[in-house]
């Protein structure tokens, strides 16, 4: 790929999705965008690049962006954060929200749905403790294709084996030969909605718990800071943020501070958590 073409995509991706792409990844542009060019009827990737320099179709831009994002995910990804969700975060919320009996959770880059559905199953498992509670799980992603997939709630054998305890599979899925269909009562617990994290999020309202995992890792520092600031404004004062295993707020923003001994868990700067120790 010519360097000027590379720059065009670099610019476009940074602007539209926040994805940072470096020259050593230029082969990825070739391999992932050639099929997009074909789908849109361009003779070559160069021809599509030319079109993108003009006034490109909004949907073409979306296709380019989606082709370049990584959708890798799994049920109960990394296991530990979901233990922390249950044992630390929900323990706090059961107490703190006992009066209003309502809880709002946001999965900010939900991919094909495994993350919000894992939370839905965990909450279902808590059973009677949450009797009478209104629980809202909002799951958003940039990619509308991946959201459609998420809404269907149909997974392959490989996908349901990655990270999900077998009891959960037996309890919450039906088998259809090689495919596993998530039960409606779990599907109904999650609302899906398209959202680009680079765009304003104020219309979403406020949340008690936010999962923003394995997406900021692809962003530059400015965008990371911007998104984290946005999330901190969406969080209740005693709210929690989960980030991915390779991500951190340290050196990027002081809107959040890590919880001591709870890897991947953050609270807001002024967060009030009397019982829980937060790092200074």
């Amino acid at each position, binding site marked *: 790929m010519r360097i000027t073409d590379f720059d065009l995509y670099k610019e476009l991706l940074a602007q539209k999705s926040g994805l940072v792409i470096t020259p050593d990844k230029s082969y990825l542009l070739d391999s992932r965008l050639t099929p997009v060019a074909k789908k849109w009827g361009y003779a070559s990737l160069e021809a599509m690049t030319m079109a993108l320099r003009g006034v490109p179709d909004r949907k073409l831009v979306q296709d380019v962006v989606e082709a370049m994002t990584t959708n890798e995910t799994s049920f*109960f990804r*990394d*296991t*530990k954060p979901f233990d922390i969700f249950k044992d630390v975060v929900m323990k706090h919320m059961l107490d703190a929200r006992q009066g209003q009996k309502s809880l709002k959770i946001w999965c900010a880059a939900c991919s094909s749905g495994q993350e919000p559905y894992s939370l839905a199953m965990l909450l279902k498992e808590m059973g009677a403790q949450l009797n009478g509670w209104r629980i809202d799980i909002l799951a958003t992603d940039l990619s509308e294709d991946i959201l459609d997939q998420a809404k269907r709630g149909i997974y392959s*054998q490989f996908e349901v*084996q*990655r*990270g999900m*305890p*077998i*009891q959960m*599979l*037996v309890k919450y899925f039906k*088998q259809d030969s090689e495919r596993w269909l998530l039960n409606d009562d779990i599907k109904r617990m999650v609302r899906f909605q398209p959202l680009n994290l680079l765009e304003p999020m104020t219309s979403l309202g406020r949340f008690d718990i936010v999962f923003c995992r394995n997406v900021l890792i692809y962003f530059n520092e400015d965008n990371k800071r911007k998104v984290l600031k946005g999330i901190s404004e969406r969080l209740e004062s005693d709210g929690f943020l989960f980030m991915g295993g390779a991500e951190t707020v340290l050196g990027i923003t002081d809107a959040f501070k890590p919880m001591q001994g709870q890897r991947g868990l953050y609270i807001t700067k002024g967060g009030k958590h009397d019982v829980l120790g937060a790092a200074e």
Partner: protein
Amino acid sequence: MKSCLVVDDSRVVRKVARRIAEDLGFTCEEAEDGQKAYEACADNMPDVILLDWNMPVMTGIEFLERLREMPDGNIPKVIFCTTENDMEHIQRALQTGADEYIMKPFDGEIIGNKFLQIGLIEPEQLNQG
């Protein structure tokens, strides 16, 4: 060091599973059918058993029934690893006392995750593999 017994009538599968378990820090024994596995357990109870379903002499599910009746037979975590991939088999395995169930084909990541979930290893041990 924790120990793992790999039970499968295919030498190739045993070798693959053994490699994975060893990478996760387990010492390994192998058995080619339920009977051999039973004898190995009478000799020395392992911490975890990776168990095939269909094998000559004694099947995996028959072995599991006997294992759970042995003294200390409740100690090992038992993970089925089988091509049987339907709900009936999974439910029967769980009712008989299996702790986890893997549908073949499997890979190191799937096994590692199951080990983690049933408390056989810590997250740090996963990343080394």
